């Protein structure tokens, strides 16, 4: 830890190899902003109490004790959830993750709430109303999926193999290389527009659809409003469809720096700004 103390104490939760945390920590250090990087429960003490109709959370990091509103947190998927091979390891992994969910639901300023990863992709997409989402099907029978796509007026089928999660784009008269079963979205084309959102801020990362960067940004802002209900503040949204009728094809709630290319520096700075937001300034 260095010496300068901001209004809230920024904390980073996740593996030391995580590229997002490495970048944020390095910028904070360069700016002389005091912060902590927590890899696991051994790095801090948690005192979380529930009683009657209230709760109180205290987090002690290197002999300094904070209440939930005194810290901000950037949480990556590597925190609290461990790979497991045995039944005992599975139990510890589930218990650790459950503790992480509970802790970060109490902290007002969190980017990457673990609870938000528990919702299905379909549930996340449904929160993005009124932005349209693509027609979808799922099947173990390729011919039936192709017939659904054809009836939906699709030109190609964007397929995800349900066993391997491998993705590919297949023409209507083609066949995927994966064995299936598959989940598929029926797409009008292979062009995509992509935007990153952090709270009220959005940035267009790509506009293959040609709807205009400002429109992509506005669409992303509109779509992401409902996501805040489940604690998603930082995400990448991918729009497909046509320029006339863009549809939200995917929401990535734990984006990696390589998705941002040359715009990572701007995203990095926005993340730091959000981490330094005082709790009372959070919408």
């Amino acid at each position, binding site marked *: 830890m260095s010496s300068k103390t901001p209004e809230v104490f920024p904390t980073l939760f996740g593996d030391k190899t995580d590229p997002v945390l490495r970048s944020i920590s390095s910028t904070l250090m360069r700016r002389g902003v005091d912060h902590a990087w927590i890899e696991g429960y051994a790095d801090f003490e948690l005192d979380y109490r529930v009683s009657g109709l209230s709760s109180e959370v205290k987090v002690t990091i290197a002999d300094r004790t904070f209440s939930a509103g005194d810290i901000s947190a950037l949480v990556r998927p590597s925190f609290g959830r461990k790979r497991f091979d045995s039944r005992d390891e599975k139990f510890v992994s589930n218990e*650790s993750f459950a503790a992480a969910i509970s802790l970060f639901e109490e902290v007002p300023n969190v980017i990457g709430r673990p609870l938000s990863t528990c919702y299905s992709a379909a549930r996340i997409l449904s929160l993005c109303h009124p932005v349209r989402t693509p027609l979808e099907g799922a099947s173990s029978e390729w011919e039936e999926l192709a017939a659904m796509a054809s009836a939906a007026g699709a030109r190609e089928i964007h397929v995800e193999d349900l066993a391997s999660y491998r993705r590919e784009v297949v023409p209507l008269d083609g066949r995927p290389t994966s064995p299936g079963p598959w989940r598929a979205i029926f797409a009008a084309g292979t062009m995509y527009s992509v935007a990153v959102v952090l709270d009220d801020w959005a940035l267009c990362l790509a506009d293959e659809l040609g709807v205009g960067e400002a429109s992509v940004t506005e669409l992303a802002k509109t779509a992401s409003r409902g996501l805040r209900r489940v604690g998603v503040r930082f995400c990448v949204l991918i729009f497909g469809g046509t320029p006339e009728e863009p549809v939200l094809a995917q929401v990535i709630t734990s984006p990696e720096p390589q998705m941002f290319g040359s715009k990572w520096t701007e995203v990095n700075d926005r993340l730091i700004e959000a981490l330094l937001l005082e709790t009372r300034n959070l919408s």
Partner: protein
Amino acid sequence: MILLVGLSSDATIRHALLAAHVMGVETTLLDLLEFYKDGTFSWNFASGTGWIRAGATRVEFPDSLITGIYARAIDLSSEVEPEQRAAYSSRASILRRMLSSLDVPVVSVTSDDVSNIAKPYHMRVLQRCGFPMPETLLSNSPDVILSFTDDNTICKGVSSDKTKAFMMTGDDLSRVEEAQKCPILLQRRVGVSDIRAHFVGDEYYAEEIVSDAIDYRFDDVPKVFRSIELPADVVSSCRAYMRWSGNQFVGIDFRRDADGNLVILEANPMPGYHGYDKRAGLKITEALFRYLGAAPAALTYRAS
């Protein structure tokens, strides 16, 4: 007809099938394990139509004969070999999604409420529904754990993994350093008896269990069971939770304190209700089948 989706080896599913037979309610079972292993399906999410096959059973949707679905769609992915986990998990997820997109009542497919996977967070949800909670601590600090623990403190799981609650004793306190790597959940033990209430739609059935057990589900001690009515404010808070969760079949656990008040412990979104139902003369299944659209005539039997 009611469609049951679950494991044929699951005691709760077997109970529901037997109860249906006794009541003369027509059911079809879609076996979950067969579906996860090599079931086939086809689904159009826009129209909510398609079919699912598991073993020899194939069900088409929509099917005007199916009035409701009782789906204990347990995710078995953590029970199988690592190389099979993704396939089992994605099939569980797609099955829940297919069943949730139907235009008939479906119970025990928890789509909106995931709070039960993390008990402290779940308690906060219950507080918002009007339930005061017993004094509870989540901590990884040996000092904090030791200062919280008295001779009336129980330890229970943080996650939804099924665990047996136990009273903290000297032996447990000597191992408290182990909590540093993974927080533990401690709770002040309140009350003199346990209460389990099953809510199905607008109906409920509650049972009080009087015993000296720490965890009456597991402890082999004498128990007295009696059916009870819940206070109106407790029923109102239970209904608030059902509205919040969107779940129309829940099993809610309480303790009765020394003053006679009920203190909630947790709400189970997929209750294993068969033991309570046997003692209740199948009243819970009856309410469940009624909610799922079983013909009233089929429910006019009287269990012996």
